[in-house]
C-alpha cells in the first residue's frame, strides 16, 4: 500500500459565536503536512469548536479553512474523503458489530481500507462479531480509531484521543500516532493533557478564550520560560502555605501530605528566598527537587492563570446552544 501524501491545514480569521458567547475570535493556525500538531487549551478555550468547524460539523460565522489546498467550506465532501476523525462523544448502535461498522464506514469511500486489516491493526479480530453493547471502553475506543482509518486518511483529526484511556492504552495510542506521522499522515489533535502534548507533538498551538496565544514546537515554548519551574520540597517543621505563597516569584503554593510544590516564574529568586525562610523558622530541609519548566508554566506566563486541573468536557462542542 502506498503511503498517503500528507496534507496541511490552514485556518484564517475564524470566528464562531454561540448567542452571546464568542467561542472563536479570529483564530489563525497552520498545520504543516506530515507533522503532529497539538491544539491545547483549557475547557472553553475553543478547541472542539475549531475542530468541528474544520470537519464541517459547525458552520463558522466567518473565516476560511483550507485542507490540502481545498476550501473546506466549498468542497466539504472532497475534504471529508481525505480526513479521518475521532470525535469525543460519538457512539454506535448497540447491536452493530465491529466488522459491520468498519465495513459500513469503509463502503462510503473510494479509497477504502480493508476491513480485516483494520480489525487486526486495532486488535479487534477476536471481537469482530461481538455487538457494540458488549465491548469494553478500550475496545470501543479502538473501534472508533479503526473507523477513523476506514478511508486511508491523509489528515487525522483526534479530539482528546486519550481521554478515558488507562496508561497502557495511552502509550499504545501515542505509539500509533507517531507511526501515523512516520507513515505520511498529518495528525491534528486536541488535548487537555500538557505532558502528553509536550512528549507527542511536533508543534503546538495554545488557545485561550478563542484566540491563539502561542504557536511553536513544545521545546521552544518551554525554553521561552526557562527561568520558570516548580520546586518540590519537604521540611521539618513545615512552613505555612501562606508563607510559601508569599515568597518572591512564587505564583502558587500547594501542600499535600507534608510535601510542598511551589510554582514559580523565577526559580532562582524563589529558591534563595525559600532557603532563607526555612533558616529563619529553624526548619530542616528533608527533600528538595527543582523541576524544569513545562507547558503549564508557559500557559501561566502567557495568561497569568494556572493551568486548570479539570478533566476534558465530554461533548463540549455538542452541548453548546
Amino acid at each position, binding site marked *: 500500500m502506498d503511503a498517503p501524501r500528507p496534507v496541511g491545514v490552514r485556518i484564517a480569521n475564524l470566528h464562531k459565536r454561540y448567542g452571546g458567547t464568542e467561542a472563536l475570535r479570529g483564530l489563525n493556525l497552520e498545520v504543516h503536512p506530515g507533522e503532529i500538531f497539538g491544539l491545547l487549551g483549557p475547557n472553553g478555550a475553543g478547541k472542539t469548536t475549531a475542530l468541528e468547524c474544520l*470537519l*464541517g*460539523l459547525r458552520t463558522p460565522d466567518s473565516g476560511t479553512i483550507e485542507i490540502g489546498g481545498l476550501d473546506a467550506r466549498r468542497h466539504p*465532501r*472532497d475534504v*471529508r*474523503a481525505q*480526513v479521518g*476523525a475521532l*470525535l469525543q*462523544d*460519538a*457512539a*454506535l*448502535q*448497540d*447491536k*452493530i458489530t465491529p466488522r*459491520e461498522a468498519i*465495513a*459500513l*464506514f469503509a*463502503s*462510503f*469511500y*473510494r479509497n477504502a481500507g480493508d476491513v480485516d486489516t483494520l480489525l487486526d491493526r486495532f486488535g479487534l479480530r477476536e471481537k469482530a462479531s461481538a*455487538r457494540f453493547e458488549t465491548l469494553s471502553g478500550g475496545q470501543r475506543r479502538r473501534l472508533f480509531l479503526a*473507523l477513523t482509518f476506514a478511508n486511508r486518511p491523509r489528515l487525522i483529526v483526534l479530539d482528546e484521543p486519550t481521554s478515558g484511556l488507562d496508561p497502557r492504552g495511552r502509550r499504545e495510542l501515542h505509539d500509533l500516532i507517531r507511526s501515523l506521522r512516520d507513515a505520511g499522515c498529518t495528525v491534528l489533535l486536541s488535548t487537555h493533557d500538557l505532558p502528553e502534548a509536550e512528549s507527542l507533538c511536533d508543534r503546538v498551538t495554545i488557545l485561550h478564550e478563542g484566540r491563539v496565544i502561542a504557536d511553536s514546537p513544545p521545546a521552544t515554548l518551554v525554553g521561552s520560560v526557562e527561568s520558570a519551574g516548580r520546586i518540590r520540597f519537604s521540611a521539618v517543621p513545615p512552613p505555612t502555605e501562606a508563607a510559601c505563597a508569599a515568597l518572591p516569584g512564587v505564583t502558587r503554593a500547594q501542600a499535600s501530605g507534608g510535601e510542598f510544590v511551589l510554582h514559580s516564574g523565577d526559580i532562582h529568586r524563589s529558591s534563595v528566598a525559600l532557603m532563607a525562610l526555612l533558616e529563619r523558622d529553624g526548619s530542616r530541609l528533608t527533600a528538595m527537587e527543582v523541576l524544569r519548566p513545562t507547558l503549564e508554566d508557559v500557559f501561566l506566563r502567557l495568561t497569568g492563570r494556572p493551568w486548570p486541573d479539570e478533566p476534558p468536557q465530554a*461533548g463540549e462542542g*455538542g*452541548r*453548546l*446552544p
Partner: protein
Amino acid sequence: MNSGPLRHFVLVLRLNLRSLQALIYGYAVPLLFLLAFGAVFRDDTPALRHEMGQIFVITILGGACFGLPTGLVAERERGVWRRYRLLPTPTAVLVLGTLAARLVIVASALAMQAALAHAVFGTPWPVHPLQTAAAALAVTTSFLGLGLLIAALANDVPAVQALGQCLFLPMILVGGVGVPLSVLPDFAQRIAGFMPGRYAVHALQQAYASAPGLRGTGFDFLVLAVIGTAAALAGSLLFRWEAGHRIPRAARLWVPVALGSWLVVGSVAGITGRLRPLPTTGDDFAAVTAADIAGMDYSDLPGDQELAGRLDPPFTTLEQNARIAPFVARLRAWSPGTGDDSPQAVRSLVCVAAVADISADPREGRIARAVYDCLLSRFPRDFLARALAWVALYPHDGHVYNTIPALGLDRRPAPDLVRSRCVVYAKKYLGRIEGKLHD
C-alpha cells in the same frame, strides 16, 4: 457511486431484526391488533373484510409515528448521526435509507397481517393486490413524513412517545382508524375529515375489499400527498443531527405550516361535500341469505314502461349511448357510489334511479338503465345480488339520498317514498341478474 447508502439500508434492516423492542413494535403489536379485530369481527362473513383498511393503517401509523422517530432520535442522542456527518455522502441520503428500511419493515408487517387474517379468520385476499400495495405505499410514505417531523421535534425518545401519541390516539379514537367512521357520531366524523387517517383507511379499504378498487379515491391520495409532503418538508428543515442542538426560532414556523395542511384538506373536504356523515350498513346485510335471494317475489313489480319504476331497454345504438354519456360520466364519479361501505354504495346508486323516477325526470328510464349498467360494472355479481336483496328486503336500513344535485336531480321527494321506490328498482335489477326477469 459508492455502496455505502445501500449497505446502510441493509444494516438498518438487520439491526431492526436484532432488536427485541423493534420486533415487538414492528410485528408483535400489529399481530395483537389483528387478533383483537379478529376477535371482535370474527362472526362477519367473511371476517375482517371490511376492517383490513383500518388494521393496515394502525400498523402503518405505529411504524411511522413510533418506530421511525424512535430509531432516529435514539441514534441522534447516542451521537451516531454526528459520526455519519463526517462521511463524504450527504447525511440526507442516509435518512432516506432509514425511511426506505422502515417502509420495508411496515410492508412486511402488512403482508404478515394479510396472510394471518386469511389463515386464521378466512379473510379474503385483497380484491386488487397491486392497488392495495400501491395504496399501502402511498399511505406509508405519507405517514413517514409525519414520523420525520416527530423525529425533528422530539428532543429525546420519551418525547417521541409523547408526540407520537398526540397523532396516534386522536386518529385511532375519532379519526376513523381504530373505531369505524360509520359508527362515530356526526361531529366526530367531521373532525376525522381533518385527519389523514380517514383518507388512508378509505384508500386501503377500497383497494383491499371493494370491486371498484381505487376508482374515486383521488381525493384520498391528494390529502395524503399534501399532508405527507408538508410534514416531510418541515421535518427535513427542522431536523437536528446532534443531541442538544435547538431548533432556531424562525424554523419553528414550519410546524404550523405542516399542521396547517390538515386544516386545509379538512376544509376542502368540507367544502366539496366529503364530510357528510356516513350511513351505517346494519347487521341486516349480513343476514341476507342465498335462500332470500332465490325466494324473491317479482310478481308485484310494475312494468318497465309504466309510470312508476320505468326502466329503458339496454342501450344498443351509438345515439342512445352518446345521449346518456355525460350523465354516466358524472354517475361514475359520484362519491356515494364509490364509498368504502360497498352495500351502502349499491343502495346509494339505486337511489339515483328512484329519485329520477319519482321526480319524473325526462331521462328517468335511461337513468335507471345507466344505474343498472354502473352496478354491473362496479360490483361482482354475487355481491351485487346480495346487496340488491338487502335493499329490497330491508328498505329502512342504510342511508338514502332524496336529492342529488351533483347529478342534476334537484327535487327533494320524501325519504320514505325514495325507500319504497328503491325496493322496486332493486328487485328489477336483482331479477335480471338472477335470470328471472328479461329485458
